């Protein structure tokens, strides 16, 4: 009798948990920024997992088979696109055996759609390093582009769950309003540093640079993806001195050994900015990402 009761409890528990999870849209995103925005739009209607962590280089994620399990169960897949994840996400997608999230399906969301792209190459030549044929893919680092990303994610969620359209639209309006509000604050804070010259490690800050009026004079990498060379360091040291540059910005996934050399020679500070949500413990969502970066940058530029 006890055994039968135990089995009945297990079945009931499984049914309840299955029913609860069945009501949620299962979303897998390539990056943690897309996860954060999806959570802000979908709220309790979505269950979101990100493949890349916030402190990981999104160009070079290892396509572990364990990600295939998550993708095989997903209702929606959100990608940065523009070839950012070309080295790993196509293989994972085709191995997922999940038709709902293949390119062209309702569950495939390219977050870059509608974003005005920068640095679109007119000539494609690998001699220029790791160039992206569609343009610079780090567009989420402009909060205004965050609104377009949110629009795309909202459209994707509405295709999967049209009955919740008004709920997602309300959340999108709230997201856009918060971006507008925060943007005023961020631009106000950065206003006195308009035109400030900086050095960056990798060419991934162009959208941030343009939005907040910075000037990136040069990169530690002589060409995108090529590690700093002694010749490049000499050039950077000279540029830092001649332009009185105070700050070198880098990302959590690059070593600081080369920028430390420049810092020692010139006194410029190396600041590790966050490229994605979760890069540091305090960055819990997409808004925190800009709060953190702007505060850090201002500390360095003072």
């Amino acid at each position, binding site marked *: 009798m006890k*055994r*039968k009761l135990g*089995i009945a409890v297990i*079945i009931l528990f*499984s*049914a309840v948990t*299955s029913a609860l999870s*069945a009501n949620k849209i299962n979303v897998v995103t390539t990056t943690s920024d897309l996860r954060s925005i999806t959570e802000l739009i979908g709220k309790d209607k979505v269950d979101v997992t990100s493949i890349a*962590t916030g*402190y*990981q*280089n999104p160009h*070079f994620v*290892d*396509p*572990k*088979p*364990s990600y*295939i*399990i998550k993708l*095989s169960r997903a209702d929606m897949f959100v990608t940065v696109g523009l070839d950012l994840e*070309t*080295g*790993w996400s*196509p*293989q994972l997608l*085709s*191995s997922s*055996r999940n*038709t709902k999230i*293949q*390119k*062209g*399906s*309702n569950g495939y969301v390219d977050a870059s759609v*509608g*974003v*005005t*792209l920068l640095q*679109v190459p007119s000539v*494609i030549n*690998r001699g220029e390093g*790791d160039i992206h*044929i*569609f*343009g610079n893919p780090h567009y989420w680092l402009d909060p205004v582009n965050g609104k*377009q990303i949110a629009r795309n994610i909202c459209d994707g969620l*509405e*295709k*999967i*769950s*049209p009955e919740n*359209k008004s709920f997602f639209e309300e959340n999108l309006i709230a997201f856009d309003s918060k971006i507008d509000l925060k943007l005023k604050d961020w631009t106000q804070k950065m206003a006195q540093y308009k035109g400030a010259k900086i050095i960056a490690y990798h060419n991934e800050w162009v959208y941030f640079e343009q939005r907040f009026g910075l000037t990136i004079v040069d990169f530690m990498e002589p060409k995108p*993806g*090529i*590690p700093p060379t002694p010749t490049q360091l000499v050039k950077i040291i000279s540029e830092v001195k001649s332009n009185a540059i105070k700050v070198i910005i880098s990302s*959590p*996934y690059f*070593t600081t050994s080369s920028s430390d050399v420049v810092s020692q020679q010139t006194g410029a500070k190396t600041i590790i900015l966050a490229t994605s949500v979760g890069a540091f413990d305090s960055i819990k969502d997409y808004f925190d990402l800009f709060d953190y970066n702007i505060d850090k940058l201002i500390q360095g530029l003072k």
Partner: protein
Amino acid sequence: MKSRIPCYIKVILIGITLSISESAFSQNDTISKSDSVLLKQIEKQMNSQDQSQKAAPTRVAPSTLPDISVIGDFQTSYKNNTKHNFDAGINEAELSLQSVVDPYARADFFFTVGKDPATGKFTFDLEEGYLTTLSLPAHLQLKVGKFRSALGRINPVHPHALPFISLPTAYENYFGEGINDEGASLSWLIPNSLFYQELVLQVTDGPIDNPSFSRSVGNTYFELAHLKNFFDLSSNATLEVGLSGMTGENTFNLRSNIGAFDLTYKWKPVQFNTYKSFTWQSEAYFSNANTPNDKVVNSFGMYSFINFQFTKRLFFTGMYSYSNKPFSASIYENSYSATIGWYATEFQKIEIEGKTTSSNVEDEQNQVLLRWIFVIGTHGAHQY
């Protein structure tokens, strides 16, 4: 005779039935959702006429051409105990064409132009050419065509992607340049929420010029099963354990069976995965070959290597291999090799390897190899 089904089996069966019916209902639901989505999309497009839209971004012109790449493999080598000690030249050029066919399948073709070591002449060959389904139910995936068999960790990988130049002695003794054959492969992603499990079943015509197996003139086919188990030990470390079993006709028109076991541990810090990593990979082969006069030969081979990444561009691989021969358990060979790799970018690498092989029947062989691998175009990612 009436069979009695245990109570817990009934519970499992009810559970499975409920799951299937749930997914069936959700499919119907999806159809009705799609209709309403279409209506909503039309509605939305009509309503959005007055909404200000951003200008369409400049994008590269779309193309239906497949991803095309060419991989060059330039090699030079020195070997003792041979008449011709030095050799140099293009070892192989690989042309790959890869694309999605339609919403239901993708196709991958790899052509090679390889040099015949005996004549020095180049020959054009189909290395692999297969169609993979994208839309089978129940987490199944079917592959048909010519493909590298899902045997262990080395066989499915193209040689240019391996972190060493010469293949492990045990692998060469049992599989030559690899089992690469025509037929069908069915893969099932086992619904296991605890860890990744994939079962692959393959039936092919049978390899040609292989030390263990031959293509049958009769109705004996080469059959292979591989179970892959993959565990995330932490965010930085993974473990893969694989079991393979294969059976087919051998050169004596009798049956050979091989069981294989593979174990791979990888450590790659997520944050600095482009700067440092460590891999320890091993495989063991247990061969059971029937030979004339009812003689059965049970033999064994294994290899184990470690691969260290010291910096973004510098790699070291050290390997040991022990091996019998498929039809002789009394012959044994030991080999040691060390490879240093310098990766300029993800599109170019240079490797230099020293290898020594000793045997109880032949003189010791020493060799030094150097290869330069380079790729132009767009080449798909390799397996993890």
